[in-house]
């Protein structure tokens, strides 16, 4: 199908974009990479009166070092983020998650900020950002504000963005010394939506876990940290038994719907395995990391 009739604005600055969104009213939509929005337009699941195309807002395209981590302007392409040596060295969890985002061709166009603002519960970048404790800068008619990723994602396709606001940049904390991370996902085919996915960041002190972040996507309605699994791991050394138990606790904390390709029971089974694997690999990566 084809998009319904719409108006189109191509602002040259964030200020102009905010203005265009404000004038466009409630039906105005920000167009970034369009890899999720344009399918919705084509199928007429959404009919915005105005598209505000931010692809030529240069100030949204910066990718730079920030406090040991990385700050990514909203329209940094997923392919550029994936290929960046800075991202690979400072935020290995994001680098590991990126090949799972759509396909080679869609990552050429899809943006980091768009993926965050779209807030698909099966999105890899939202899960990675929440697991890392990242932050999101947004701006709108009320000015600029900064949100913790954990507060940004509300539920399926729903964020804390207010009408007229847009994502300006995302802040990806760097891996501190003595830390390790891992990302695990199961999908039917490369590039398909994940059946389940898990991400883990561990920090070690004296051969034990001093801090743990363990989070799930796809089997939950938003990227969700699993406190039960994190508490189990903290203060301990990770072995096969602990990884299995953490996986079981994480899976027990979910209530997936199940569907044509996987029953709820199977999704919980897979989730437990993915958490166990992510935890085990994050532990090994942390042991090998320079202290």
């Amino acid at each position: 199908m084809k998009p319904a009739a719409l108006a189109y604005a191509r602002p040259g600055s964030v200020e102009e974009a905010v203005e265009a969104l404000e004038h466009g009213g409630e039906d105005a939509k920000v167009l970034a990479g369009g890899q999720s929005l344009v399918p919705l337009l084509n199928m007429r699941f959404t009919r915005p009166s105005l598209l505000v195309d931010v692809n030529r807002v240069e100030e949204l395209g910066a990718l730079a070092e920030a406090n040991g981590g990385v700050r990514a302007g909203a329209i940094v392409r997923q392919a550029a983020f994936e290929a960046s040596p800075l991202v690979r060295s400072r935020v290995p969890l994001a680098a590991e998650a990126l090949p799972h985002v759509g396909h080679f061709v869609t990552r050429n166009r899809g943006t980091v900020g768009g993926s965050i603002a779209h807030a698909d519960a099966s999105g890899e970048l939202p899960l990675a950002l929440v697991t890392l404790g990242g932050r999101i800068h947004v701006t709108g008619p009320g000015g600029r504000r900064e949100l913790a990723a954990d507060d940004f994602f509300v539920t399926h396709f729903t964020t804390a963005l207010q009408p007229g606001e847009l994502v300006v940049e995302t802040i990806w904390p760097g891996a501190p010394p003595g830390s390790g991370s891992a990302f695990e996902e199961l999908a039917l085919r490369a590039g398909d939506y994940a059946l389940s996915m898990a991400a883990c960041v561990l920090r070690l002190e004296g051969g034990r876990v001093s801090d743990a972040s363990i989070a799930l996507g796809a089997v939950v309605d938003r990227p969700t940290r699993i406190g039960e699994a994190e508490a189990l791991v903290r203060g301990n050394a990770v072995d096969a038994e602990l990884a299995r138990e953490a996986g079981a606790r994480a899976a027990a904390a979910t209530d997936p719907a199940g569907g044509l390709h996987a029953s709820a029971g199977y999704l919980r089974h897979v989730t437990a395995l993915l958490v166990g694997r992510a935890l085990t690999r994050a532990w090994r990566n942390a042991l090998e990391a320079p202290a």
Partner: protein
Amino acid sequence: MIPIEVTVNGRRHREHVEERLLLSDFLRHTLGLTGTHVGCEHGVCGACTVRLDGASVRSCLLLAVQVDGAELQTVEGLATSDGLNPLQQAFRTEHALQCGFCTPGILMAASDLLERTPAPTRREIVDLLSGHLCRCTGYAPIVEAIASVAAGEESR
């Protein structure tokens, strides 16, 4: 209607387009370049893949107004006056197409991959092809064709 100016396969075009016109329809209907195929029209099948300023993209997921000022390449731009390019020749040699519907998109995506990664692994080729649906299911010779160009077997 919005005026746009684009270069497609080295030729400059000036047209007026409706805001909602998809790039895939602009190429096919406005410019008559029907080599770019439209399958699913929501970014899944990969048949409409073209190069936008060098990067392979889904033309059904872009509006024509968005490519104002850009340089595009479609499958019609691959062959030279000498004939098929090495990748196209490899598809012919390896019998890497049956009905041919998915072929233009795969050629455009694989050209991009081979420029960025001159010697991709089989895994990388297969990952690329996960974004391109071939209903004839003839993936094995497609992998062979791309791998043969990567290995330089088809270089002239």
